[in-house]
């Protein structure tokens, strides 16, 4: 059987970089840094997203720092603009991140529309993306599942487009499979589902639709046992990817016997 590329040779390429893992994870909502570290290790993620916030002044000298737990030497750090409701705030955040991480250019852009849905503000996202690309950033952009907007962001030069499956932190799973499928069909850059995944099968479904990867945080961090869920997600992403490459059986309205109908001894 000639096998389709997978395993070592099946890489996720974002901007210039190649990755073996197609699971991207966040670092929020964990009990402590220990749980953060163990969960991320169990997830096998190579790209890890972090928020940029005011450092708290007057903290004890010894206090650990997230980037000591998730060292940039080992992980590709993906600073995000979570919490930004204007293009301008998102731009400032990305520039600070770039300085913080020694001219690091890979960022996750999100410009939010409201706090209830945490859906993106599409026009502001388009505006910010345009400026960031101009400033030489490699933009992975959070957006709605609108195929038109997704295509436009690709055309602007974003290195990856990340439509939402459902509201951030909702765990509702992929609400509109047709939209995700259409976005994937039209894309020339990686499409990653960002936000809304709740459990392992949701992640597998995203990959079966042909997505290049999935970014998640809450589904792991808010599981009863985050480290075990991280392992579940690692396997679900690989399972979904392999199923996509393997090419699923056709659906049938009626049954089809697995055993021969002939040769029964009666």
């Amino acid at each position, binding site marked *: 059987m000639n096998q389709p590329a997978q395993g070592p040779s099946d890489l996720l390429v974002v901007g210039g970089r190649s990755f073996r893992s197609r699971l991207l994870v966040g670092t929020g909502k964990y009990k402590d840094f220990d749980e953060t570290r163990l969960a991320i290790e169990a997830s096998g993620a190579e790209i890890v997203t972090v*928020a940029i916030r005011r*450092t708290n002044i007057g903290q004890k000298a010894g206090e650990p720092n997230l980037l000591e737990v998730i060292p940039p030497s080992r992980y590709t750090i993906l600073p995000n603009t979570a919490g930004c409701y204007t293009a301008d705030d998102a731009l400032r955040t990305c520039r*600070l991140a770039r300085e913080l991480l020694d001219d690091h250019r890979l960022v996750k852009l999100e410009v939010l529309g409201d706090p209830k849905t945490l859906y993106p503000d599409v026009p502001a996202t388009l505006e910010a993306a345009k400026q960031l690309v101009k400033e030489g950033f490699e933009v992975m952009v959070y957006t709605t599942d609108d195929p038109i907007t997704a295509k436009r962001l690709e055309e602007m030069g974003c290195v990856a487009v990340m439509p939402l499956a459902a509201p951030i932190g909702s765990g509702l799973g992929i609400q509109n499979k047709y939209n995700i499928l259409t976005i994937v069909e039209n894309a020339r850059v990686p499409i990653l589902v960002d936000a809304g995944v709740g459990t392992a099968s949701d992640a597998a479904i995203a990959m079966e639709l042909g997505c290049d990867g999935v970014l998640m945080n809450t589904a792991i961090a808010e599981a009863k046992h985050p480290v075990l869920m991280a392992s579940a997600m690692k396997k679900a992403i690989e399972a979904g990817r392999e199923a996509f490459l393997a090419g699923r059986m056709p659906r049938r309205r009626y049954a089809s016997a697995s055993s021969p109908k002939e040769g029964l001894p009666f």
Partner: protein
Amino acid sequence: MQIQVNGATEVVPEQSTLSQLIDRLRLSGKRVAVELNGEIVPRSAYAARPLKENDVLEIVAAIGGG
């Protein structure tokens, strides 16, 4: 003199530099980035950068988020 650091007022000696402030705040060697009056100051420029009355600084770090 008075300056603003992350939204709070700090009193610093006259003629102090950004790197002296960073030391005072026990942030030297930590992964932070500094925005001074809306402009980003490269780490390499901290020592040479004097602070003025009413300077507004933002000092940020990476924290857990998704």
